[in-house]
């Protein structure tokens, strides 16, 4: 899941300070699951804005809608008739959703309500851990299911480096050494040969905006002339 954090209130307040009618749009998928941008958080942010603006003597009107997913155009349709009534939009989705809203409503300023943080897992209610950097070249098969791009400070594909220190990373004793853990797990699985094999480097030139068309859908796009 994509994990996000609510932006500090001060930042949100500053972004919308010149607007009188603001629509806050929640997203019912990842950011709702990680308790940052679902229906509940939309209501709370709107209340915060109202309290702050009343205090400033510049009241604000707010609206709240939470759509299923802001990263699907069809789900943004329900906003079509609504956004015209507002001067600005705060999107509480991840960066992808925010941009999709901004693209659909190019005449209205769209502001982020959250900071998109990482792709991660849910350890407990409200507790998330980063697991994946979406590098585009997954090596988890080599590394016993532990991501060195995320976990290793150097993002090494062939570790450990000389900075591994009794299970910790040289940058911080609280930071586990990814390659120490990889070694431990590979050893348990009798796959230590993986450490000796050279893992070819990632093509970091892939860090331009990427597009994926799943194999079964290339024909579909061509048939309908979708570009």
């Amino acid at each position, binding site marked *: 899941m994509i994990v996000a954090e609510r932006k500090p209130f001060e930042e949100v307040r500053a972004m919308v300070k010149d607007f009188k009618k603001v629509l806050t749009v929640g997203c*019912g998928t990842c950011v709702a699951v990680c308790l940052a941008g679902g229906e509940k958080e939309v*209501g709370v942010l709107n209340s*915060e804005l109202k309290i702050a603006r009343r*205090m400033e003597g510049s009241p604000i009107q707010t609206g709240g809608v939470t759509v299923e997913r802001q990263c699907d155009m069809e789900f943004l349709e329900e906003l079509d008739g609504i956004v015209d009534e507002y001067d600005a939009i705060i999107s509480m989705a991840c960066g992808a959703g925010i941009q999709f809203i901004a693209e659909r409503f190019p005449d209205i300023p769209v502001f982020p309500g959250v900071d998109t943080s990482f792709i991660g897992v*849910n350890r407990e209610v409200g507790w998330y851990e980063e697991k994946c950097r979406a590098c585009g070249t997954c090596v988890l098969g080599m590394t016993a299911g532990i991501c060195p791009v995320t976990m290793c400070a150097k993002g090494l594909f062939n570790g450990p480096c000389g900075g591994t220190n009794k299970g910790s990373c040289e940058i911080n004793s609280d930071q586990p050494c990814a390659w120490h853990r990889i070694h431990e797990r590979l050893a348990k699985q009798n796959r230590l040969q993986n450490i000796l094999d050279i893992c070819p480097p990632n093509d970091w030139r892939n860090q331009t905006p990427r597009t994926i068309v799943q194999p079964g859908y290339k024909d579909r796009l061509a048939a309908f002339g979708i570009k």
Partner: protein
Amino acid sequence: MTQQTQMETINLSTDVLVVGAGMTGVKAAAEIAASGYRVVLIDEGTGLGKEAGSSVADLDGEELATLDALVESVNGSEMIEVMTGTRIDGAAGVPGDFRVWLSGNDDIVEKSIGAIVVASELVACPLNEAYGLNLSDTVITQSQMEAALCENPAAFAGKSVAFMLGLAQDGNPLVLERVLKSVLAMENMDDASAYVFAGDLKVAEDGLERLYLECRDKGAMTVKLTEMPAIMQEDGTLSITYDDPVLQRKVELSPDIIVVEEAIGADQVNAALADMLKIDMGSMGFLQTENVHRYPVSTNREGIFVVGGSRRVKKRYGALMDAENAAIKVRNLLGDGTITIPANKAVLDIGKCTFCLTCYRCCPHGAIYWSADNKPVISKVACQGCGICASECPMDAIQIGDFNDADMIDQVTRSSTAKADGAPTIVAFCCQNSGLEAARMAELFGMPLPKGLKTVAVPCAGKVDIDYVMHALAEGADGVVIMACHNGNCKSEKGSLYASWRAANAQGMLEAIGIEKDRICFATTASNMGADFSGILMSMEETLTGK
């Protein structure tokens, strides 16, 4: 509510599983079977009523006869299936529809069960090491003493026996009773003499004071010590040297036998049972939290009851009373095999649900589970309607009976916008188990209350949504008060806690906005504390008036 609440009838499985066939478990099985329910009585051991080697044998003649009669009635009952050498391997489901997996010697059987009674027994643990003693022929535990007195009391003729207690642990009436019974047995023999070296004598149980006096009248000598005496154990010779509090000098005694006390505690199996049954552990390894709403035999989960030694250290009659209470609870729950419940107790809107698991993880009653097609389900039987799940749900997908979000927000808006003669508007969210009753009491008794006070009832403080708190302030309330139950007094165990966390979170938001955080006040109270309620609210009014 003006609308008639729709009711729903649910069929329940009426078989009852009793875990543990010590005397308490046997009694519970007999009582429940007598109410007309089929019982599955399991025990890891080999027979009924027998406690494991380390268990506390606190039965004397009369109780033993009762136990024998109980075992006989259970063995003869067609309603009770006894499975010895069997343990519970897993459990799933909700009251009226539990599935349990029982593993015996060869195989695992699955059973459909309506309610579960846990009847683990107390366990004794000898404390000889704390006295610097090794167990031997002449240094024995209380349990060994009881067994020896039972087997061959004549062996103690002419012997002097010193009992050590209350020096290695805090005293306990159950520990004392066992010692005194043995002391009395000694004193009833010719030539035998008993000495009791005690750090304390806890007599807060029926008949204990009398038993102590009887021992003393018969000649037992009791010495109260403030510190551990010097005890020598060499070549089979024993000696105890102590500061005699009466003679005010050192005295040495050489008894033939020393009996060391035992700690009485919970069976270690409890932790695994708690984990498997998703019930809260209390202190010292017992299976009940110190919460008045759990007494006598309830747990945080409906349909799972704990009796006797599984929940506390208590004399046998208390455990047997627990068994009877469990039978009453089972009867109240399972009735005739159907239960009628409000259909809107907690309603989940699957369309809004984003399957984040927050409700499942937060429910203190284990009332939320997953159906086979991966949909969350709230069991209406298990649900206690506290609303913790609804207030944690990021999508407001759960609505609680008479406290649905639309109505609540509506009421909060009306309360927040009401103004009274320039007095600050205070919206007080009151738990109906405590704060709301305290508010009524304050009003009825004419105690001072703020002019601008608006109370909003919630089923539990756990239903106080952070959205409600912020909405109240956004709509014009000058302050918000949350009146919850005292810690450990919350019917839903964690409702007050959740409310306090949310209040702190909302206070942080106010600070970020730049206004005083004391516009939000979280306080705990009880239903009979009207004066307390009045005091808290008046102080809030004063705080807000000064702003």
